[in-house]
């Protein structure tokens, strides 16, 4: 089931997203270093790694919210930094983004949130109503939530509205930034189901940044594990693992197994030592 849309696309030499030697730093803090990553059309890619390893930054680089310090980020062969304003907007609409906190516009109702991107495209109001109704239904929200304000919603509902809003524009690729963080186990599984459903209904490419191993096991074709730069020796690659989710548990790298099994080992001691060195 997982490989539904990935069969032919996997072999395609024409990836929808391509990162070439991408490095990113904020001020003097280096987040990403020399990342090479191709995402074939139709694939569902999971990106894992501990907090602060640059997963979210990676997503924001792909959608062009951030510019790489070094290297190139290509979306469908185009480099966002070289596009004109209007072309950039057009390309960005092909990408859906589910933000970590859903990032709903809190002055607008659920309906207006989902309709927002469509209105910006000057679509007819009747079409918009139809799309909003469909998308809310798709993410399992009753029509009565349409008139609610984001502040009245629970965390899980906000995430689902965020997903409906991103899907309203029929993106070719969905980026999920920690879609299940802060949700209870049931709601986590609901979101996982939605991610699966989303790709079953349309030939969509997905990139999911997560800490949640259940999401990895259930939803993805391929996993990439990033490691914080600050913990690497110079010259070591930042991508520790790139392969199938099944292979993750068999990985030889100690650090990969430590992460998926959630074992701190001597990390606490190490963290304390780092703190000392800083102060």
């Amino acid at each position, binding site marked *: 089931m997982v490989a539904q849309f990935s069969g032919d696309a996997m072999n395609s030499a024409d990836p929808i997203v391509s990162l070439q030697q991408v490095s990113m730093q904020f001020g003097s803090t280096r987040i990403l270093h020399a990342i090479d990553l191709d995402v074939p059309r139709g694939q569902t890619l999971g990106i894992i790694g501990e907090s602060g390893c640059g997963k979210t930054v990676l997503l924001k680089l792909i959608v062009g919210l951030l510019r790489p310090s070094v290297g190139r980020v290509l979306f469908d062969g185009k480099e966002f930094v070289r596009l004109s304003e209007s072309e950039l907007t057009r390309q960005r609409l092909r990408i*859906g*983004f589910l933000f970590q906190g859903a990032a709903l*516009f809190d002055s607008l109702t659920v309906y207006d949130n989902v309709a*927002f*991107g469509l209105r*910006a495209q000057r679509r007819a109001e009747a079409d918009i109503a139809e799309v909003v109704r469909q998308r809310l239904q798709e993410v399992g929200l009753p029509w009565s939530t349409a008139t609610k304000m984001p502040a009245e919603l629970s965390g899980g509902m906000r995430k689902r509205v965020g997903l409906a809003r991103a899907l309203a524009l029929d993106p070719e690729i969905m980026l999920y930034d920690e879609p299940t963080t802060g949700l209870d186990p049931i709601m986590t599984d609901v979101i996982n189901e939605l991610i699966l459903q989303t790709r079953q209904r349309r030939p969509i490419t997905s990139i999911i940044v997560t800490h949640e191993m259940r999401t990895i096991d259930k939803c993805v074709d391929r996993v990439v594990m990033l490691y914080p730069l600050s913990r690497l020796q110079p010259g070591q690659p930042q991508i520790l693992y790139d392969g199938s989710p099944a292979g993750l548990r068999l990985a030889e790298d100690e650090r990969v197994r430590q992460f998926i099994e959630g074992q701190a080992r001597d990390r606490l001691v190490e963290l304390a030592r780092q703190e000392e060195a800083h102060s």
Partner: protein
Amino acid sequence: MFSWFLDTLDHAGQLTLFSFRVLRGCFSLAGRETLLPLCVQFGWGSVPVVLVTGTFIGMVLAEQSYAQFRSVGLQTSLGSIINSSVIKELGPVLAGVMLAGRVGSAMAAELATMKVTEQIDALRCLGVDPVQYLGSPRFLAAVTLIPVLTVLANFMGVMGGAFICIYVYRVESHFYWQNSQGYVGLFDLASGLIKPMFFGAAMALISCQRGFDSEPGAQGVGRAATRAFVASFVAIIILDFFLAMLLNNLEAQWWPSSRGMR
């Protein structure tokens, strides 16, 4: 010292670029559906505070100048000094500062919160330029509403001053108004309405830019709001000086006779 200079230059450059984007958005009427609610929020919400401060400014001017004018027997001329101060300076500046305090810092805090909660990023992802969508209607609302608020502040200031002079200090009302009339001309009224438009523009641009430029976290939001107010206030006072100079020169050149009348 040198780095402070560079920082200031950097801020000025960013503000300039930001302003161009906002102005461009004004022409394409970006975010026009939010304009009316913003006008209500900025304008209607500021009416009470402008009314109260305007009245008291007029009253305190009367109170402070009465004794001095009285001592030289010129109390009937009080109207001229009070009304021209209110209409040329205090009304516009007061409206600008009130708007900066009430609206500017709230605007900065709102935009900063939107940035922290990734709503600004979300706008971008939905194909909307956040600077134009959020900045332009705020700019337009501030620029169009501030003259209205100034008129209100002026009116209340004039009334407040007249109330204290005529009813409390028993200045002859006929002469009070007659003297006022001679000293406040059409040009003064007009310049008193042109200046606040610049104050409103500066306040809106500075406050929005501070909001967009905010650092993460609750502290960043708070700091953006404070900085928005302080920077707007300083900008308003400095602009006021230069605009006064410019407008006075224009008046002297175009209507050399108008000064002689006084």
